[in-house]
């Protein structure tokens, strides 16, 4: 109904067009052949579905009209709009407020600025965009613009078809850009593997990639070696199949149940009797309070049901179920095997050989990638814990609000970014700001709360916990509960790609470097500066230190402020890579304490080792069970608990008097 109406309207519009054309000086777009072509495929274009769009794209591509390329480009870029009143298509260069600057496809003339509400944007989804891009390959492979040529290669790499292979080959020699040329050559070989005409050609292309780590290579080879499991009557597989291997039912690769299931699925054997089928058959045959000769009330026992079903079978009311011996016979009468989808044996052999050469390399590189991930996680834990290594490790203060200092640092980064829009500059400003803010907060907390509690370490825990929940709620009240954006500068975007398997994002590298800097800073501070000396003195024996002329109050205050300040800087880094919310710190607090404890309190190398151990352990467990990250965290903590039983003072334990109690 709707469709008929629309067609009628279109007819009307078309017949009305000449009238309109007389009143306007510009020629009517409907007269142009490209518009006529578009109108011919109007419904498919409006419907915009990947399944039905191909004829429209093909028609435009193959029309030979000069505007075809323009139409495809504009359509793919979602710049094609349709007038609601008459269904004509235009392209739009600019959307200014509620007005569109429209152009005609036929001669690229500007039609004028018209209100947006009269037009409808044609929005091809990315599936259709891919098809359009593929159809543009023909025009673009030798386009003067290297970006267009690159786009054409992207489209080919995604969904290239055999039809484009000759065009690709033809364009290689004339390619001036060396990078694009090597891409074209690689793509040509990949496409040859899939679409090459002769087996020899394909095998040559396959062998070329021996030892190549690219995902695209494996993507081309794996479909060749993919196998399907089949069953066939007799003892030998059919001759016309490329058999990968023959399987024996009951072996390791194929259990007897699986084998029989295969037979059922292939319709080569009768199905087993399921409990549901048995039940249904019994219910269907209830007759005067009994079914199959057994009273209904007694059917709550599986044995009774079997008896009743046997009764039904005898009476011919139900089909007989396959028995054990029948299953044995069926399995013996069939052969089970895996076949390649690819019919040519030499091709599959070559593909398997090449894949084997890749596999080991991929494995090594995957381990390397995992190690990088683990190192990165370790550096994040280390960064989160290093402030704690000072306040807890050196001073012995249990600061449960440490996580909130991290959070304050991250929020400071956010606030700075609101004031300074340039991301690089704002990061440079944010780091000292975060340090200043959390240093001040740390000093304030030490002066007001912690110094009264040095004799009662466990109560410091409670007081700082109170501060922690108050700070968290304050952050919520000030910044709201939504996560706030903290965006890294463009030079930290993206990742360092070592090869197709090993890569790491720059932001993680930056965190790693920051962790190293902090480690160096900490060592320098503790070993080489007066403050470090005084801190160690006050920590070991405050009274003695005081009598040596050190002001313990001042030293404690500064040390605590320093630890807090470092937490603030860590907050900026963590906010950059993850999120900025009021719960940011709470996510890290228990892990941070464990990092310090596992490593050994009072020793920065211990903290480093602790973070490394936790990071590697967690990634290692994740690798064993990739579908459940939660399990990795659980078992990591269980491991730490057990570890502490055996090394209660951590990996690097302080010895002698310094250990204190």
């Amino acid at each position, binding site marked *: 109904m709707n469709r008929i109406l629309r067609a009628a309207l279109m007819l009307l519009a078309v017949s009305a067009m000449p009238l309109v054309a007389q009143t306007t000086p510009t020629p009517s777009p409907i007269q142009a052949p490209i518009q006529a072509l578009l109108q011919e495929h109007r419904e498919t274009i409006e419907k915009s579905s990947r399944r039905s769009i191909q004829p429209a794209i093909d028609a435009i591509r193959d029309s030979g009209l000069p505007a075809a390329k323009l139409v495809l480009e504009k359509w793919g870029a979602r710049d094609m709009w349709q007038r609601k009143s008459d269904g004509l298509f235009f392209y739009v260069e600019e959307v200014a407020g509620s007005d569109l600057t429209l152009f005609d496809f036929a001669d690229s003339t500007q039609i004028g600025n018209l209100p947006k509400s009269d037009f409808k944007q044609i929005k091809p989804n990315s599936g259709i965009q891919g098809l359009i891009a593929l159809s543009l390959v023909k025009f673009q492979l030798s386009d003067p613009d290297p970006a267009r040529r690159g786009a054409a290669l992207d489209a080919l790499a995604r*969904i290239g078809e055999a039809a484009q292979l000759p065009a690709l080959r033809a364009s290689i020699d004339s390619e001036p850009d060396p990078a694009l040329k090597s891409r074209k050559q690689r793509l040509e070989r990949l496409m040859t593997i899939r679409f090459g005409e002769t087996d020899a050609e394909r095998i040559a292309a396959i062998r070329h990639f021996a030892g190549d780590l690219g*995902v695209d290579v494996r*993507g081309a080879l794996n479909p060749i070696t993919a196998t399907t499991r089949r069953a066939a009557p007799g003892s030998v597989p059919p001759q016309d199949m490329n058999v990968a291997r023959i399987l024996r039912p009951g072996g390791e690769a194929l259990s007897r149940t699986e084998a029989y299931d295969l037979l059922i699925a292939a319709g080569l054997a009768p199905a087993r009797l399921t409990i549901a089928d048995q039940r249904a058959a019994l219910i269907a045959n209830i007759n005067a309070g009994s079914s199959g000769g057994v009273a209904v009330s007694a059917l709550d026992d599986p044995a009774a049901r079997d008896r009743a079903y046997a009764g039904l079978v005898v009476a011919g009311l139900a089909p007989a179920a396959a028995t054990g011996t029948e299953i044995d016979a069926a399995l013996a009468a069939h052969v089970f095997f895996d076949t390649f989808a690819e019919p040519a044996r030499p091709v599959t052999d070559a593909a398997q050989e090449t894949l084997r050469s890749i596999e080991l390399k991929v494995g090594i590189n995957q381990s390397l990638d995992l190690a990088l991930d683990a190192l990165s996680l370790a550096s994040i834990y280390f960064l989160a814990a290093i402030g704690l290594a000072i306040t807890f490790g050196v001073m012995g203060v249990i600061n449960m609000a440490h996580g909130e200092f991290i959070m304050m640092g991250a929020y400071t980064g956010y606030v700075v970014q609101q004031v300074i829009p340039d991301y690089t500059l704002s990061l440079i400003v944010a780091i000292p700001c975060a340090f200043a803010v959390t240093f001040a907060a740390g000093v304030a907390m030490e002066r007001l709360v912690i110094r009264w509690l040095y004799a009662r370490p466990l109560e410091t825990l409670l007081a700082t916990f109170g501060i922690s929940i108050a700070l968290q709620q304050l952050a*919520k009240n000030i910044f709201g509960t*939504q*996560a706030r*954006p903290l965006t890294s500068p463009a030079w930290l975007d993206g990742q360092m790609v070592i090869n197709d398997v090993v*890569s790491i*994002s720059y932001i993680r590298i930056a965190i790693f470097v920051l962790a190293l800097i902090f480690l160096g800073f900490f060592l320098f501070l503790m070993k080489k500066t007066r403050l470090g000396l005084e801190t160690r003195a006050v920590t070991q024996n405050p009274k003695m230190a005081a009598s040596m002329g050190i002001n313990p109050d001042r030293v404690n205050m500064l040390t605590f402020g320093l630890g807090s300040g470092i937490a603030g800087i860590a907050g900026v880094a963590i906010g950059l890579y*993850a999120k900025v919310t009021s719960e940011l710190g709470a996510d890290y607090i228990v892990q941070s304490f464990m990092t310090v404890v596992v490593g050994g309190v009072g020793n920065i190398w211990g903290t480093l080792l602790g973070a490394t151990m936790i990071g590697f352990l967690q990634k290692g467990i994740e690798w064993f069970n990739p579908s459940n990250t939660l399990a990795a965290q659980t078992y990591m903590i269980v491991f730490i608990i057990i570890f502490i039983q055996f090394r209660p003072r951590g990996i690097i334990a302080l010895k002698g008097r310094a250990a204190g109690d």
Partner: protein
Amino acid sequence: MSQFLKTMLGAAAGSLMLSTAGFAADTIKIGVLHSLSGTMAISETTLKDTMLMLIDEQNKKGGVLGKQLEAVVVDPASDWPLFAEKARELLTVSDVDVMFGCWTSVSRKSVLPVIEELNGLLFYPVQYEGEESSKNVFYTGAAPNQQAIPATDYYLEELGVEKFALLGTDYVYPRTTNNILESYLKTKGIPAEDIFVNYTPFGHSDWSKIVADVVALGADGKKVGVISTINGDANIGFYKELAAAGISADDIPVVAFSVGEEELSGLDTSNLVGHLAAWNYFQSAESDANAAFIKQWKAFAGEERVTNDPMEAHFIGFNMWVNAVEAAGTTDVDAVRAAMWGQEYPNLTGGTAVMGTNHHLSKPVLIGEIQADGQFDIISATEPVPGDAWTDFLPESAVLKSDWNDLDCGMYNTATSSCVQQKSNY
């Protein structure tokens, strides 16, 4: 100090008095049961504000049945047992006539026994895993067939995805949704080994390995698509890692069911353009009603605030409730429930939402692409889809249906033609 303690003690005593005092019935009370603190506050405070705005607006129009509406806001603090406690308090102490609230499934499951016992009324505004239809709850968010299934169809039909990575936060909504999707994909001919499933904890931030795993899925030459049921702020780390890894939506598209305008406001989306989300509402929907709603919201909550799908769900739910009360002439739960069946109200995205007798709405499904400004470009919209309480793609629930009007049962087994239970399964 002791003075302070005395004040606290006095406060506790006051609580007892207050909580037992009755209220005069010159207003209609509406309970708002959304977490304002704790982990879920990030999502739920917006809904509380939405409710306050809607109630305010209704009062300006003269209230309901000639009475003013009064919002009773409580804070269940993202603590699931507290949801049950607060719901009981709202129903028995504050005597509310209707409640709007909950976000997570576990909070709803916590509240269910209480409202079913006390015959309360709850409007639940969030997309959820289905497999439930309570007599006392109206589900204004999407059931799986109104979000997950159409999005998967879009992947299969439009993007030609052959291999699926189902990434989710480890809780019931992703678990059940992924279960349904796995079984749905198998019916569509996707073999089990082409479905990769991963669950991460709430607030997870270390995504590099998982993103690398997803990229590695492409090694067998099939087109990979990610279906994400990652919840809340864990998304920020995920998308940041995705952007850092340079995964373009053309290579590996990601469709998210829990990422809306609110979540995107926490990150820079310029590297994520083209990735997808499926909802029943996007702020970018072009209609007069939506423009008015956005204007009203910005005036109420602030210029930088965005609207999202659960807000639309509350908008529709609240207005339907108002109309049902007017139609029933009373706020009595049973009368209102009967009046709710078949209630119609215009969607903000155009078209009309209809409340079915299984207490689910029929709504259109929209698929949007993320844009650089944190909004979504709507690229696909279906006709209204009626919400299905019991999914057809799991064998246990395919035989179940819900119809409170004719069958008076939310869990009716069509195979045995009997009502499994009148109360919900919690």
